[in-house]
């Protein structure tokens, strides 16, 4: 196109826009542009994570005996046992499910911290909070000092049917785990162990927290 042709083309466009067909064409183009914009927007929002997905906690996994980093402290699963009854301060607590007692060692990194969130998670994603029927010496009330491991047991009351597929999850914040790190460790529990724990007549004493130095 030469410079001389440009005014002619613009003149033709102006003439076309002034005709009924030209106006219809312009309206159709505008509608198509709006529909395309909405379609692209919808595609973007449907293929990107929503707020819930984006704010999920960061799960750090490990096995029994390994140390798992949970951002402000680390966790080592030392063992797991179970019982049909537990006792604390001379009071016995029974259950229609099974008590799971998880022995862990917790160590803060650089600043004092507490472990506010402690749950067992089953294979269907259901969570069971550490029981409030007894004092939990490792949760919330206990301040962890940097470099000083604290060992103790956490007690959970769960249905028998889920006891063989559980993982423990621990985090710093009791109420809000969004975008925080959570340590998750699978509990090595077999069906035979659960049957044995259910049959045990003696109430298990929950271990208190102890700083190990």
């Amino acid at each position, binding site marked *: 196109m030469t410079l001389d042709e440009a005014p002619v083309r613009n003149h033709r466009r102006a003439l076309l826009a002034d005709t009924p067909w030209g106006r219809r064409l312009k309206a159709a183009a505008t509608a198509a542009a709006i529909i395309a914009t909405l379609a692209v927007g919808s595609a973007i929002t449907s293929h990107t994570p929503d707020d819930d997905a984006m704010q999920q906690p960061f799960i750090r996994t490990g096995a029994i005996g390994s140390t798992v980093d949970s951002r402000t402290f680390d966790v080592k699963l030392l063992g797991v046992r179970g019982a049909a009854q537990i006792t604390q301060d001379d009071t016995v607590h029974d259950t229609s499910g099974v008590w799971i007692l998880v022995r862990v060692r917790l160590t803060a*990194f*650089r*600043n*004092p911290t507490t472990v506010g969130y402690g749950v067992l998670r089953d294979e269907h994603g259901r969570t069971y909070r550490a029981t409030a029927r007894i004092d939990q010496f490792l949760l919330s009330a*206990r*301040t962890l*000092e*940097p*470099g*000083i491991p604290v060992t103790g047991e956490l007690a959970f009351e769960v249905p028998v049917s889920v006891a063989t597929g559980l993982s423990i999850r621990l985090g710093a914040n009791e109420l809000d785990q969004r975008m925080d790190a959570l340590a998750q460790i699978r509990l090595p529990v077999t069906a035979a162990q659960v049957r044995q724990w259910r049959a045990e007549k003696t109430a298990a004493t929950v271990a208190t*927290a*102890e*700083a*190990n*130095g």
Partner: protein
Amino acid sequence: MSGNWLRRNRWGLVLVVPAMVLALALPVHDAYGQFWKTAPRTAVTQGSSGWVAYDDATMRLTALTSVTHLTGFSDEAIAVPSGLEIFIASIEFQSTSPSKLVGCNMSMEDSTGATYATDMDIVSDLGVDVTFPSCTPDSIGKPPATWTAKVYFVAPAGARPVAVRIVIGKLLPKYARLTSR
């Protein structure tokens, strides 16, 4: 979209860019400012007098020492468990309105920057006769001119403490950093 439309709206289009930057940056800046105030980040240190002026009070660290034995409720000696080191800090305060120090938070800082709380759990588990850590005077009524708080800190063996921090929540991110002279 014709050339005329672009020409008519050119300044508006140019201004859209900084307007969008401002619209995004201001909430981020505000949120970051709020986050900044949630933790002790700005140390207020001692002047030539050796005292740290923090809010309406002045304070100084007179001793920060490691102890090998502690005293129980019946004055019996209690050994420090292996792997742990217990420090006792003595902090002097002066203030005409000590009530403003209520709810202060004290911590010990070591040479690596790690901090330790005034640990009541470990010390009381040992059976040590320990009082609740506080920045305010024990006496009721007219406050003394100067009073001293004795505070326990527990750290792993080998830790080298360098300072004691005092935080009053409403003054964050400022905190008093007390060092031995």
